């Protein structure tokens, strides 16, 4: 039905985003904050922002998402939000008893010029922050960047607010997993430990936003990185940041602050990117790759070998976040598929450069766009002009998939109409197997659906 609203003819649009492939900074900051144990995210702005972010995260994770708001009124927007924030800090510590309040700003509080740092200092001076409790903060105006930028900013704030260098090594590695599912964080931790390395992972939303059904309501679920761990991050041997957009800033800030050397890698999605991750872990920690990891790699490779005939030159359109799309495109190329249209709403020139470099040797030119005008509408227009065999995007891609009758793999944020994404990883070799299973299911289902009676086969 929405088909009729997409025009095949592509005209430049400067002033308009139609069906966005991104959302705004504060929700990313809120998600990152939930990855600290005993932390209550706080939205410094109108009530609506906080309500929308909580609803959006709730729909995606199907978990209670807690966050407080400064509840701006007209008065606060004229006279500044200082009194709101100070009162909020007081209310939160006396009522909800978190260890940390993680404040992020909104377009409103940014534009009226609230100095959250100064307000946080005043709150401490006024005795509103109990001993052993913390207020951290970051700046996340909605008119800059995207949800990924907000995640990155809050992750950086975690590193700079807590980390200390005592001069004594803790023998651990900091791993910054980026804007990924809780299941991915669990998987990254597992693989790192499997390599014999002790990680400090932050943020860590595993068991927070994919927690068990217990019959009890916990405002602060058991997961999350602890303050002790964040403090100790300054004594780690090194930092590995996964994903340039969401994780690099925090790693570099930690390097500057505590002289913890860092490396920025792609998210370990697919074979080659996971190889690089494993190899980096191996070299920085001076460990051998255990047989168990080799086994997983071999299994992933085996599935590709078994099924390569079905993957051959299948055209793919993708929308999502830059850190996921880069290794995903690399993975698709490596299994002989053809990514042809790629959009991310998150602005940044590096993304387009990376994709162009990855696809330079292909016999065709990919459509790629980031930031302004890179929206689901443009992706749909591209698909109309050059149809694809598979669409990979968040739930909003389902309109395009239905209109154009394309197999559709849900991937990214948000996914509000399917479950599993928060429980099963898509990173590392195991995650690669899952991605491949999903892709193949879709492609093979399509062959089954479209086969004639006489060509409908049992064995494929």
């Amino acid at each position, binding site marked *: 039905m929405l088909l009729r609203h997409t025009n095949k003819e592509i005209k430049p649009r400067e002033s308009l985003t139609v069906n966005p492939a991104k959302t705004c900074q504060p929700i990313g900051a809120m998600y990152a904050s939930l990855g600290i144990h005993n932390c209550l995210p706080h939205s410094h702005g109108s009530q609506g922002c906080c309500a929308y972010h909580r609803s959006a995260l709730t729909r995606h994770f199907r978990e209670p998402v807690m966050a407080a708001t400064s509840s701006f009124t007209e008065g606060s927007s004229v006279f500044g939000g200082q009194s709101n924030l100070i009162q909020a800090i007081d209310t939160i510590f006396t009522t909800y008893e978190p260890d940390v309040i993680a404040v992020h700003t909104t377009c409103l509080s940014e534009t009226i010029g609230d100095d959250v740092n100064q307000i946080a200092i005043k709150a401490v001076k006024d005795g509103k922050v109990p001993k052993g409790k913390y207020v951290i903060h970051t700046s996340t105006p909605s008119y800059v960047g995207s949800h990924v930028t907000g995640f990155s900013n809050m992750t950086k704030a975690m590193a700079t607010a807590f980390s200390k260098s005592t001069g004594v090594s803790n023998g651990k590695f900091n791993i910054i997993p980026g804007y990924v599912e809780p299941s991915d964080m669990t998987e990254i931790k597992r693989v790192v430990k499997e390599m014999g390395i002790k990680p400090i992972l932050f943020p860590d939303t595993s068991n927070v936003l994919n927690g068990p059904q217990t019959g009890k*309501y916990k405002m602060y679920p058991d997961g999350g990185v602890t303050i002790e761990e964040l403090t100790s991050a300054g004594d780690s041997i090194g930092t590995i940041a996964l994903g340039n957009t969401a994780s690099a800033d925090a790693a570099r800030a930690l390097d500057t602050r505590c002289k913890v050397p860092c490396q920025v890698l792609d998210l370990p999605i697919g074979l080659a990117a996971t190889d690089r991750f494993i190899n980096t872990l191996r070299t920085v920690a001076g460990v051998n790759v255990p047989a168990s990891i080799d086994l997983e790699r071999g299994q992933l490779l085996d599935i590709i070998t078994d099924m390569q005939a079905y993957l051959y030159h299948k055209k793919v359109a993708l929308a999502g976040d830059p850190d996921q799309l880069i290794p995903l495109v690399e993975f698709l190329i490596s299994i002989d598929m053809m990514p042809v249209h790629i959009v991310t709403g998150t602005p940044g020139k590096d993304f387009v450069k990376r994709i162009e470099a990855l696809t330079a040797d292909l016999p065709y030119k990919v459509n790629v766009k980031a930031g302004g005008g890179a929206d689901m509408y443009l992706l749909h227009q591209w698909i109309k002009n050059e149809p694809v065999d598979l669409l990979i995007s968040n739930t909003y891609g389902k309109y395009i998939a239905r209109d154009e009758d394309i197999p559709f793999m849900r991937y990214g944020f948000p996914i509000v109409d399917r479950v599993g994404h928060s429980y099963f990883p898509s990173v590392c070799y195991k995650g690669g197997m899952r991605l491949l299973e999903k892709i193949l299911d879709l492609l093979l289902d399509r062959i089954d659906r479209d086969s004639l009676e006489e060509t409908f086969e049992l064995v494929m």
Partner: protein
Amino acid sequence: METISVLEDRKNQISQKGRDTFEMACEKKSLAGAVSQRACVFCGSRVVLYPIADALHLIHGPIGCASYTWDIRGALSSGPELHRMSFSTDLSETDVVFGGEKKLEKALLELVAEYEPKAAFVYCTCIVGIIGDDVEAVCKKVAAKVGIPVLAVHSEGFKGTKKDGYKAACDALFKLIDLNRKPEKQIPLSINILGEFNIGGETWIIKEYYRRMGVEVVSVMTGDGRVKDVQSAHRACLNVVQCSGSLTHLARDMEQAYGIPFIRVSYFGIEDTSDALYDVASFFKDAPQIMERTKALVQEEVCAILPELAALKKDLVGKRAAIYVGGAFKAFSLIKALKHLGMSEVLVGSQTGNKEDYALLREMCDPDTVILDDANPLELAKYVMEKDAHLFIGGVKERPIAYKLGIGFCDHNHERKIPLVGYEGMVNFAKEVHATVTSPIWDLVPRKAFNRAISNKG
């Protein structure tokens, strides 16, 4: 949960029937720092105007406000679906510094040329209010150029509560009607349906009742809405307001401007649906055939559903429900509907109730029922556990809380997929309640599974 204490400032917003006699405090601004379930002005405007399917809805602001409201309500359309697209001026830092008026004008012109909508709504978000774009002027200019109504919706998030957003939407609707004001004749035996949003096709059910009664529905605001219908609304004889929290303001304005009286109704549950239809029928005294048809309709419909309700009721008698909804009016209907199923309520709350609402709630409720205004998740969880509820009725943010506690849940907000109004809606409601309350999964929730294991041993 045992450690949870209620905030000092909120003590008067919570009462228990039979124990507390004080007047409920309400219509207060939420305390800064509260984990409130409330939203903002923009949210209020957006939900009211959203279902007008042949209008353009352009959100003037940074991307978030458009992203978060992109097709999240199941307001169905029988025709155009322009309302399901997400249009935003996607303001960036430079726009915030230099102003967004030019961008807005360009965006409007591009969109009108592309989609030929019948009218355009421009939603002003927080930031637009702060940077001071003259949205009215841009709208006027574009309207003159393109020849359709282009209306600014003053919905800057911080300028009040969701209720103020309803008012902004009502103002925009009134303007849309008034722009078309001509000395047209009143349509006999006709009504407007106000505050009905066609979630899951509810508008269609209600319209069918009125068709059978012989009452003409001029417009529905805004379920399955069309600009043309809204513009004819001033020709109706009566405004029938369902979601009174959202559209009473428009009904009042129309009464004043066009002399159209209004009544408040609800279409949830057997009694309230029947009352609504009878109230409309008795308004048209000069056409007694309408009352005749209404009586026949109610009798037929009620008889048709009673056996099925009775069957479902068997498993539900004695079960306890917690209700937390936006408007208190909905809570009244829900209490009555639950009673039909043999259930009682142990907690009732609303985000936006007023003093009269809470007084009436206290009258209606069972003894010891906890009544809450503007609650937070901790309070909700605390009382649901204390009262050992079997069912929670609420919206998107309450669903996972109920599930984590290990009790059934029924969505009575905009994420429901099935219609809950009218007689067939009552059956749907009963089925949904039955499905969730009797799910075997609750027996596997740790605390219950543990108790069962012990009793099995014994």
